[in-house]
């Protein structure tokens, strides 16, 4: 069936939702992260979490597990395959995550490159916003190595931790 402009608008709104999650987790903007999810939503992480978890619980887990030595994160999304039926949608999206943490030795960083899938059931609310009702995270690969982490790169990366990156200010003025 040929696409319509209405279908493109729905796709754009769904991509906004997927991006809210990625921007939220990478910039540690937890209200934005949580805005990607519908009430009652669950997150499933295969091979990592024994049971489905709430988005609030997942955000707390990410904060408590990683934030004490986290330097940066980027979850790049692509190749989304979408099936939209009325107010429901199913999306299969590739992610490529690159994260840096403080290394075990001084002036080093631990880099982790993880590839995987986000598989989402989404719903469109009465307000026209699409939200994730269920997200399954499936990893495809995950490799870690240690990098030299010296100025000026180290200073530039650490500066991103201090910036608030409010969406209204592309200059990154602290929130």
């Amino acid at each position, binding site marked *: 069936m040929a696409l319509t402009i209405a279908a493109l608008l729905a796709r754009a709104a769904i991509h906004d939702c997927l991006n809210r999650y990625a921007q939220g987790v990478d910039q540690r903007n937890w209200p934005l992260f949580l805005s990607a999810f519908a009430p009652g939503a669950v997150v*499933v992480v295969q*091979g990592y979490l024994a049971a489905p978890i709430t988005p609030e619980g997942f955000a707390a887990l990410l904060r408590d597990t990683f934030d004490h030595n986290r330097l940066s994160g980027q979850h790049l999304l692509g190749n989304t395959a979408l099936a939209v039926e009325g107010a429901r949608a199913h999306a299969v999206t590739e992610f*490529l995550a690159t994260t840096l943490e403080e290394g075990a030795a001084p002036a080093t960083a631990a880099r982790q490159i993880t590839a995987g899938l986000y598989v989402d059931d989404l719903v469109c609310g009465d307000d026209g916003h699409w939200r994730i009702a269920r997200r399954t995270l499936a*990893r*495809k*690969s995950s490799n870690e190595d240690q990098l030299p982490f010296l100025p000026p790169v180290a200073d530039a990366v650490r500066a991103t931790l201090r910036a608030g990156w409010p969406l209204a200010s592309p200059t990154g003025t602290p929130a």
Partner: protein
Amino acid sequence: MSLTEQELLDRAEITDALVAYCQAQDQNAWPLYARAFTADATIAFPGMGMEPMAASVFRDFLIRFNETRLSGQHLIGNSWFEISGDEACVVSEAIYITLHPTDTPGRIRRVRGNALYTDRCRRTAEGWRIAERVIAQKNVEVDEGDYDPALLEAIRAAAATDWFTSAGAGQ
């Protein structure tokens, strides 16, 4: 000249075909492969030691190749579109990561690369499809590392899942 609604729709349908190719080979979702290519489509691999072949022949090669592959991701971006009527030329960057077993249990070979997909697309009765694809390699790196058994089990389980139904995601 500003874009038109029709050009936006054409771009979206062409992107669907490009994504169908990646999803098909990365998730072993082979019915999607037919939504990427015309029936008479060809693929060329300049400089890679492979002769150009029909897209259907390459699909059969990939099916056999993936029987031993643990996982794959071909992420595309930066697509540049030139659309003229029912024909289009699209150039897309691709970055890929694939995992492969070695003779040593738990030891995994990772292949990472960068490539360029140059596609001549055609509007058909079923929608836009790729009629000719040229895959050009920009970079390939291979390394090996040890994988935790639990992570390997999760990767194998994910590779065996049909992700295109809600039931498949309901684990």
